[in-house]
């Protein structure tokens, strides 16, 4: 069988592209590369030609398909809602089948399939370390999601937590009767790099009297695998996560990571559900329950004056693509504005992508930072003391950009601002 044939799965979606060019206005990769194969319309045309069989799954096709951050901005603004992000993942799967996974993505697959999240960091260090990370501290989950080969010391890396978030708390933290029961999908970045985000999330939902369930055996969401076209790995992870997420009766499945939330909410049902009908109904059920932490806090009526920072601070807010494209735009802002002492200063282009794009950053670091340069400038221009956002991935990229721009502006998660009083109390 021709490997390009798997694109037949998305043939009807491909046909919806009318080549109008609207994606040119919304694609961060196009901003960086400036040429048509980098933009959604170009990639869709290439997929159509792959199906016709008049181009190959060769280096040029690989290069074009690698120039996508899977941010979903083109999908959001497309007049015909063509799901280019999902189509690119399928194209990457075809490429992986044809050419084999890259060494890097093979390693990613091994790491993210490690049974226990507890051992996950160690595995990342063991497997990826010798390959890519000689100069960076070992045992990093970060290396899994955002591995940085060949970049050297230029990249700023957040220090790793001494004790990962998942090792700190019991699996069930009982709340008040009658209050929502929430399963907390933690995600690798929060677990290993930003456990304080996990703490803030937990504190806020406990403040509201919710029961918070943190399944110990939850896995990586799998997005790094998706982005490499390693959809078999993603399927395995999705199945394992399903078991964990279904284990408890819950009203919501909540994540404080925009990317993990996006994976559960959108890519699981759309990408994995379509390929594996036997999982589809379960994935859909999980997706329907998945919410972002800020979205849920807003819905449950959190009063940030009871929990948030007391001192005067000027903050600007960056929209993570995977929140914005789920229409989670006003909720975090309203919560921040309601926090005593917080002045929210909007930056120009708050909704522009930070440029990380998961593994995009690995293969196209220079371009990734080119996309980021405008973002750093916009943040600095607000005169804010800190930039808040709702995605640990964005947090790392924003920190890196600001450090390289010589700025000392702090990067924090929205929930950290909202929970400042609670955290002090503990």
């Amino acid at each position, binding site marked *: 069988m021709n490997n390009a044939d798997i694109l037949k799965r998305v043939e009807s979606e491909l*046909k*919806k592209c*009318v*080549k*109008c*060019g*609207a*994606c*040119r*206005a919304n694609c961060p990769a196009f901003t960086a590369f*400036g*040429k*048509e*194969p980098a933009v959604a*319309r*170009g990639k869709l*045309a*290439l997929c159509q*030609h792959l199906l016709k069989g*008049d*181009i190959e799954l060769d280096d*040029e*096709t690989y290069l*074009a398909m690698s120039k996508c951050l899977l941010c979903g901005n083109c999908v959001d603004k497309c*007049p*015909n*809602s063509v799901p280019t992000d999902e189509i690119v993942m399928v194209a990457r799967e075809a490429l992986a089948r044809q050419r084999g996974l890259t060494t890097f993505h093979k390693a990613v697959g091994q790491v993210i399939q490690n049974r226990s999240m507890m051992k996950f960091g160690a595995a990342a260090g063991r497997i990826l370390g010798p390959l890519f990370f000689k100069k960076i501290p070992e045992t990093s989950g970060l290396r899994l999601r955002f591995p940085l080969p060949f970049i050297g010391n230029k990249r700023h890396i957040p220090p790793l937590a001494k004790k990962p978030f998942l090792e700190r708390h019991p699996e069930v933290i009982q709340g008040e009767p009658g209050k929502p029961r929430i399963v907390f999908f933690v995600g690798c970045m929060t677990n290993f790099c930003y456990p304080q985000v996990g703490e803030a999330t937990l504190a806020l939902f406990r403040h509201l009297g919710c029961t918070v369930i943190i399944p110990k055996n939850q896995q990586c969401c799998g997005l790094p695998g998706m982005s490499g076209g390693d959809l078999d790995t993603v399927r395995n992870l999705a199945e394992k996560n399903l078991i964990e997420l279904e284990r408890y009766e819950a009203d919501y499945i909540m994540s404080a990571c925009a990317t993990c939330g996006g994976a559960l909410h959108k890519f699981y049902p759309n990408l994995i559900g379509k390929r594996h009908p036997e999982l589809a109904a379960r994935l859909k059920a999980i997706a329907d329950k998945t919410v972002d932490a800020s979205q849920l806090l807003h819905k449950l009526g959190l009063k940030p004056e009871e929990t948030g920072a007391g001192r005067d601070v000027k903050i600007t807010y960056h929209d993570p693509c995977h929140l914005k494209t789920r229409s989670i735009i006003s909720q975090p802002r309203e919560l921040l504005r309601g926090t005593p002492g917080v002045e929210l200063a909007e930056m120009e282009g708050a909704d522009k992508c930070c440029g990380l794009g998961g593994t995009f950053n690995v293969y196209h670091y220079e371009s990734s930072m080119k996309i980021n340069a405008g973002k750093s400038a916009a943040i600095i221009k607000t005169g804010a003391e800190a930039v808040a956002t709702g995605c640990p991935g964005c947090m790392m990229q924003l920190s890196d950009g600001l450090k390289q721009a010589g700025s000392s502006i702090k990067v924090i998660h929205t929930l950290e601002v909202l929970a400042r009083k609670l955290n002090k109390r503990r």
Partner: protein
Amino acid sequence: MIDQQIIEKLEKIVGADNVSTSRQELICYGYDATQMEFLPDAVVHPSSTEEVSAVLRLANSENFPVFPRGAGSGFTGGALPKGGGVVLVTTRLDRILRIDTENLIAEVEPGVVTEQFQLAVEKLGLFYPPDPASLKFSTLGGNVAENAGGPRCVKYGVTRDFVMGLEVVLPTGDIIRTGGETYKGVVGYDMTRLLCGSEGTLGVITKIIFKLLPLPEAKKTMLTIFDSIDGAAKAVSSIIGNKIIPTTLEFMDYATLKCVNSRFNLGLPESGRAVLIIEVDGDRELIEKQAARIQEIIAPLGLVECKIAKDAAESEALWKVRRLVSPSLRDVNPDKYNEDVVVPRSKVPDIIRVIEKIQAKYDIPIVNFGHAGDGNIHVNVMIDKSIPGMDEKAHEAIAEVFQAALDMNGTMSGEHGVGLAKQPYIHLELKPAQVAAMQAIKAALDPNNILNPGKMFPVEK
């Protein structure tokens, strides 16, 4: 046609990184919004006027065609490399060279995206009104070459009305300036107006001097729903007859309304048969007065509902109705031909009625919306190309729509141009002597017929 030797020469001119020959890259520069596709032999991305000139000189000496291209968002195939050759992309020429707040002019390169330019001048309290629907991604060079229009044209005019001067590389490679920076200027032929709308057949635009206006203080948006198409049409002529020129007078017919309402559940009244989105701009006091006067004028014309935006957010919500048109059309049929006939504004109801008859005759859904204020109607012929015979029927229907517009002293195309898509119909509008005069100009400026050949005029076989 394009051998390795020519590729190497092109690489010498623009740099190896800016010449593409891989099949993947060629595919990506072979389409536009018509969804037609022709593969070029090479794509070049020049970054200066001199490089453009050198490419065109080479094209003349080696005898290969060159197809200028901006964002590739055209609706008529004007940028498509039919027959093969070199696509010349202008998007690296993307600098705003100056914005002169004393003389209210700006000079730009052709690859600047329309909206980026608008935002830049608006920061300085200035205004560039032309607003084609593609403004978020189309380039100014493409706008000038196609003489793009948009909703605001009813008050402010089309792209051509804002172009004061150009720098152009002629098909021979000669670099000339046309027009200038002064409002007045009568020395020589008006080459500027000739080049506006020339669809890349007479030269490659490398610099544009635009006229700017002071940015209006405020605007006011109204969404008005009428119980008949005649009511809406009467509203248009009455408003203008009462000496009010709104910024926009956007119109949607019943078919459009049904599409949008059923797909997005907007809760628009059932009895609505036509919608007008009316916007006025200017000094705050003036627009309040104008808005009140407009309401008086339209009230007796079968007005079902009138929503007035109180602020920018509400205005945005009203415009959303218009913006949802395109996505909802797909529910009618998967493929469409988007035509853009113009008739004198008083004839809008007449042309809509004729189109309804054509629709019934050919049994093809046709959805109409557009710029009622200047009589420019987007006629969307909705078809399914997988149904045998439907495409052919659509072309016959389109020819009848064109003829109807011409019979009412209108034109086949107000904004999109001819390119390849309307080539077969051009004889309906232009007499042989007109075509001959135009072709004489083309032949004089492009003796080797290397620049965007095979466009606009019917090609003799």
